[in-house]
């Protein structure tokens, strides 16, 4: 098997890497669902405050696609529906029952999966609320059920800081993986690309059927699905749809069909300098970060992030973990202003560049906080951002064309292949402190709207 080796990129060496030790999060009192997590779904509520829902009962559907539901990840009473600006639904809170009741979905065993029709699969995924785990590129939104993709991508080698190790996940529970893969293959009718690390030893991955297996090697973002798409089946234009699903969500699809119930569990990691216990936690979807961190000591002045430090969002303990997130990161907030920081040898400064002494020790002993560490400046193309982007894309020029709002050039320079998460390291290393991944996001929005 060929290995695609990528050189560009960087593995952030942050303190607080999760240990490979799995604990169970306790049963939470309430769950929270944020419609905002589901990019591309305009929510239309089907429940009211005070109503009772079972696990898998619809909470809202998509205005653009009335067949597509998002369902309750737990059984209980809807105690609150938080509304935001212009009465948009921001949060749905469910008080959990003592005993859980489930909506029943069609069940099948591993062998009869093959006889399911793609129409039947689609119907069940849409109805059960599990469809949104399938997302599409370009534009990274919930997949459009009416538009089949040219390929499906599953990354089994996340490289983002603190993200769960695939081999560890599968060692604990690999049920539903093969079923999920077969279902996706049937549903999409196009190749399912399963990308693993060069050194992966997981039998369920290496022996998976109905997939095209690929091996990638290299530093982050080599594990990002956007990088895999770029090297295997690049997105040619805005109508060139590719689907992608997280590995755990593939297993959840499989479990939905094997058990006939909405699968609520997933394993996430807790990491970062600011938490005491860094480990793997088995949680249920919709749990708040506070519940996930229950029994864990969080340092003073810490920032809680739903997701990894490169792409996640800042959240409080009362907020739920994002629907697609598999990591809770806790890092120290910036500790104030350092005197003549630019002049110091920099033994404790984390940098990808060779401008600080810390580089000699490979950033050992450095601390990373939320400080920007510099003032925003105009683009000076030192080549920093190019050094962490393993794609045949010229980021400096793409950024310039986005700022110039030149759609034609953006398309020629490959904007549809881009996703903000693949450019997160570019924001990280930029000496001008430009928000490169944010600019990429704006560029994508701009071409989507005006292209």
């Amino acid at each position: 098997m060929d290995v695609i080796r990528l050189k560009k990129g960087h593995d952030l060496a942050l303190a607080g890497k999760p240990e490979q030790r799995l604990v169970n999060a306790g049963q939470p009192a309430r769950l929270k669902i944020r419609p905002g997590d589901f990019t591309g779904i305009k929510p239309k509520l089907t429940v009211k405050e005070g109503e009772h829902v079972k696990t898998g009962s619809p909470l809202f559907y998509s205005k653009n696609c009335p067949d597509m539901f998002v369902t309750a990840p737990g059984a209980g009473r809807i105690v609150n529906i938080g509304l935001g600006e212009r009465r948009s639904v921001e949060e749905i809170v469910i008080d959990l029952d003592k005993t859980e009741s489930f909506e029943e979905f069609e069940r099948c065993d591993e062998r009869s999966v093959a006889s399911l029709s793609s129409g039947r699969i689609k119907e069940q995924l849409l109805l059960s609320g599990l469809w949104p785990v399938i997302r599409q590129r370009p534009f990274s939104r919930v997949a459009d059920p009416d538009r089949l993709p040219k390929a499906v991508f599953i990354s089994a080698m996340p490289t983002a800081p603190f993200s769960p190790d695939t081999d560890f996940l599968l060692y604990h529970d690999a049920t539903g993986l093969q079923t999920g893969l077969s279902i996706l293959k049937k549903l999409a009718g196009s190749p399912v690309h399963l990308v693993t690390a060069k050194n992966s030893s997981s039998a369920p991955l290496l022996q998976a059927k109905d997939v095209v297996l690929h091996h990638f090697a290299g530093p982050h973002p080599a594990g990002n699905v956007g990088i895999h798409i770029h090297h295997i089946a690049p997105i040619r234009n805005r109508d060139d749809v590719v689907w992608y699903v997280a590995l755990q969500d593939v297993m959840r699809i499989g479990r939905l069909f094997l058990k006939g119930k909405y699968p609520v569990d997933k394993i996430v990691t807790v990491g970062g300098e600011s938490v005491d216990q860094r480990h793997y936690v088995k949680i249920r979807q919709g749990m708040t970060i506070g519940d996930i961190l229950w029994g864990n000591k969080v340092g003073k002045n810490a920032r809680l992030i739903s997701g990894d430090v490169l792409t996640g969002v800042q959240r409080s303990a009362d907020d739920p973990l994002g629907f697609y997130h598999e990591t809770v990161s806790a890092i120290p907030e910036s500790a104030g202003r350092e005197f003549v920081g630019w002049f110091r040898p920099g033994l404790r400064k984390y940098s990808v560049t060779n401008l600080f002494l810390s580089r000699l020790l490979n950033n050992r002993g450095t601390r990373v906080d939320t400080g920007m560490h510099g003032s925003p400046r105009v683009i000076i193309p030192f080549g920093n951002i190019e050094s962490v982007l393993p794609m045949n894309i010229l980021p400096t020029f793409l950024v310039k064309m986005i700022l110039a709002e030149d759609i034609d050039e953006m398309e020629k320079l490959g904007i549809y292949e881009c996703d903000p998460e693949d450019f997160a390291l570019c924001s990280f290393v930029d000496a001008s402190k430009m928000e490169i991944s944010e600019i990429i996001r704006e560029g994508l929005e701009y071409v989507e709207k005006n292209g």
Partner: protein
Amino acid sequence: MKGLRKYLDGLSPHFSEGGKWYRFAPLYEMVDTVFYVPGNTTTRAPHVRDAVDMKRSMFTVILALLPALFFGLFNIGYQVDPGSGIVQNLLAGAVAAGPMILVSYAVGGLWELLFAVIRRHDINEGFLVTGLLLPMTLPPEVPLWMVAAGISFGVVIGKEVTGGTGYNVFNPALVARAFIFFAYPGDMTGDHVWSLADDLTAATPLAVAASVEGGDAVSLVTSAGYTVKDMFFGLIPGSVGGTSTLAALFGATVLIVSRIANWRIMAGGLVGMVGASLLANMLAPASQNTMLSLPPLYHFVMGGFAFGIVFMATDPVSAAQTDRGRWIYGILIGVLCVMIRVLNQAFFEGIMLSILLGNAFAPMIDYFVLRQNIAKRQKAYDRQ
């Protein structure tokens, strides 16, 4: 240090929006962030950032320039009185070149501030480099008003009129240098060198090599008293910081290891220069042009080639900005430098003009590299 922080924090409201000195916010930003790393934290992903910033990057360029600067100061004194000690020579150099550097920083800084205030952008650290580069490329006897006029032209015309730092087409320090070169040709033709001793007005090695038709360049240079060793170490009369090839190589090492400058530009420059001069050497027997016979090593150590290719051509903004483009850009400068030196003997010092020409071509080079990148992507699309 607490007191300073308090003082700056106390001033901060006056420079914020609505404050009485709001217009001068860039000045406050500059002073405030010179002393203290900005206190702002990330507001969106990524939540962590590299410690690198523009100050550190430009400071590294200054570090890379220091060996050349200090050697240059020493050399100024050395040219007047080789007998006195290192310290005396350094002092003599500092007395001669110090005011030039001060004037360059002061006058250029004023322009920088003026434009920052009017155009409402922050003061960019890149000026620290420009302000030092210009005096280092000038002979030590240049009158101070000329330095002031040059840096004014460089900052205003070379940089600010096209939008300021990051938007300049040409390296501002070279624009300033070229302005002085062309505006005051009587004082600065490049064929004679200045030094502090009034009576000493010698021909530069490049001028010597071109002085006789049909001769042998190497023996002409050698008989004028210039040895390769002296030219390599830089113990010859010349500009403040540009005589020493060794110091330039020192700077090159710092810039390449730190990746502030792109090695491809320097390597391209070297390849272009060696290739073009070898070609010239091959043509030499058929022509009366003495310069044709000058071997690559001499091109390398003579004049400002090393200084220019290391510190001037590598300005990331005015150079080509793609990796392949940087090779082409470097080679172009190397070739042009030799061509100007050999074929256009009105200007002995070819490196300044060749870099400016390279700057002019850089956007076009990038344009073609970009088209190539687009074509390559299209090919990958078609393969599917």
